């Protein structure tokens, strides 16, 4: 009884405090002027020199490319972390075997090529319209996950070094391009304007693949290559 009261008390206090915080922050937002330029004009003004015509991509891969480099590192880091934590004892998802579900298999057969195509399109279109490496990687990654779920054991064919290369090739390319720029221009990641378009594409393509690989690996518990699961390791499905 006492416990319950204590729970209710703390919930009330917490609720009130959080409401107060939300209220103050909301009030602060309400005081904002209705219009503000931010960096939209500045970004648009330099769009010519950035090598792409989609402003978001220009921010992502040119003005603030350093952030993006670190972000790709974060993704790879998460894979490493998952591998440390899960890789030792499990292969990730549940049972991967020749599944008996023909509908799923059929659908996968239809969808996978389409998804690969779409991801390629998204990668290309990122230069001038919404899209880019992350979107492409996400679609490609989900295609991979779908395959695994359907029991198509495609990842078994990936050699261990291939898996590692696949996961890091985006980051490696990014760094090589950045350092190459530094040799040419003197500053890390400063693309020569005339090659910016191509350099961005050079970075994006492997990055998209790496992102896709990382997403699949995260789904599988830190590894791309999933072995067949031992029967005694089935108990961890409860979470």
């Amino acid at each position: 009884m006492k416990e319950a009261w204590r729970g209710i008390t703390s919930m009330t206090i917490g609720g009130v405090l959080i409401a107060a915080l939300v209220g103050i922050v909301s009030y602060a937002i309400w005081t904002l002027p209705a219009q503000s330029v931010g960096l939209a004009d500045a970004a648009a003004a330099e769009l010519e020199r950035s090598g792409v015509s989609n402003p978001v991509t220009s921010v992502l891969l040119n003005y603030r490319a350093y952030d993006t480099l670190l972000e790709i590192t974060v993704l790879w880091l998460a894979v490493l972390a998952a591998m440390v934590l899960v890789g030792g004892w499990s292969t990730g998802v549940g049972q991967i075997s020749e599944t008996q579900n023909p509908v799923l298999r059929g659908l996968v057969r239809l969808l996978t090529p389409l998804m690969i195509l779409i991801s390629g399109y998204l990668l290309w279109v990122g230069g001038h319209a919404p899209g880019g490496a992350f979107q492409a990687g996400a679609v490609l990654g989900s295609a991979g996950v779908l395959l695994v779920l359907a029991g198509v054991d495609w990842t078994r064919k990936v050699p261990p070094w291939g898996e590692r290369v696949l996961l890091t090739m985006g980051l490696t390319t990014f760094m090589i391009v950045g350092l190459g720029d530094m040799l040419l221009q003197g500053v890390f990641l400063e693309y020569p304007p005339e090659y910016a378009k191509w350099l961005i594409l050079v970075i994006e393509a492997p990055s998209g693949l790496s992102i896709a690989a990382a997403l699949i690996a995260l789904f599988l518990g830190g590894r791309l290559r999933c072995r067949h699961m031992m029967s005694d390791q089935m108990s961890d499905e409860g979470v």
Partner: protein
Amino acid sequence: MDAEWAMTGLIMVPLAAAIVVYVTATRFVAAWGVAVAMIQTGLTFWLTRSILQSGPVQVPLGGWEAPLGIPLYADGISVLMLIMTTLVGATSTCYAAAYFSALQHDPRRSSSQPTIQTFWPLWLILWSALNALFLSADVFNLYVTLELITISAVALIGLAGKAQALVAAIRYLFAALMGSLFYLLGVALLYSTYGTVSWHLLAETVQADVLTWCAASLMIIGLLLKTALFPLHFWLPAAHANAPAPVSGLLSGLVLKASFFMILRLWFYVFHPVMPVSAGWMLSVLGSAAILWGSIQAIRQQRVKLMIAYSTVAQVGYLFLVFGLACEPMGMLAWRGTAYLAFAHACAKAAAFMVAGSLMYMVGSDLLDRWEGIGRREPKLIFALALAGVSLMGLPPSAGFIAKWLLLNAAIGNGRWEVAAVIVLGGLLAAVYMFRIIGVSLSSAVPMPETMPIPRMMRWAPLVLAMVVIVGGIVTTEPIRLLEIGAPPIAAREVAP
């Protein structure tokens, strides 16, 4: 030109090494770590020299100046933090190399963790992220680097594999994510008001209005959670104490300093003109409470690593005294003292954790009772612990003494007797817990026979680091001079007593 290469190198070299080590899955992984340590030492030296000669450096990455691009920026305090990272990082690297190779041959090892192969990329990424954070001049970029640090730190704790470590890692991760999201909300508000995320530009345009206060409070409080200031320290002791031996020192010495450095940057370079004195005092009061609470808890613990971890809670408290003291005439002294204390604490605490790790490896436990008479077997390690203890207590000759000297001067100069009393009392309490460990380990009990031999590097690395703390208390003019480069505008408020 020089400084740019050094700055980029400090970030990119460990990252590149992480990729190489991971992709090639080389057996000589430790050698790569040591090579990186050597390169980093060279680069840090290079950068320090160039900063001392020509003042703060700003590098517009990608050729884009702020606000559009992300500049790297190095001034005195960030270079001091980089030196700290390099010193602790290099010694930890050597220590870890010995530790993991010893662990592979350890018959007591039960779990089938692929520790050695996974430790190195994680640690190298952490190293790169720490350097990136100390060099960042962009509040959103700081968020990304901070997340890199958090994720690698959590994974490194998880490396221990024990249930306790996992619980600690989960708790730490949740706390850290909450903290980051508070910070990110603050960044969102700042950007929507001022249209920039460069702290240089923010410092020029910041105004005292409700939105700025909201943003400042959210950012600072989020970072407080990550820095584990009392009473938000609940996650720290377990996380730092249960991490593998080479990791604990990195967490206490470096990872905490990262978020603290961000608070220091934001507070003194951006928000200082608009935040009221009382807000700073709030942090100082919490800091004082942290000193007392952390010290008392450290004295109460039975496990050595927990004692050292609680000692970190206390030492973090010292770092926060500056926010109250810097509002008054002697602000500059407090600022220097705090920056130097961060440096001193990193080296001393990492050395202490390394000693604890070595002895724990030797005995198989870090229960204080099991350590009776251990000092007679390992005098070098206990000596290193004693030297680190001298700095934690604030006794001369040690960097901790100089830092506390500056802080005490600031406190007394401002007429803050209660702060001065807390500083001294904290030193006394530190003496109690440090000598509890040293006293037990020097007791006359015969050390237990079933121990593992300690690799030589696991003896020398902490000793070297402890010596650095002592040297840092003897040669002081250069570090203090370094701190004057690009010092925040509180310098103007300094008034002769």
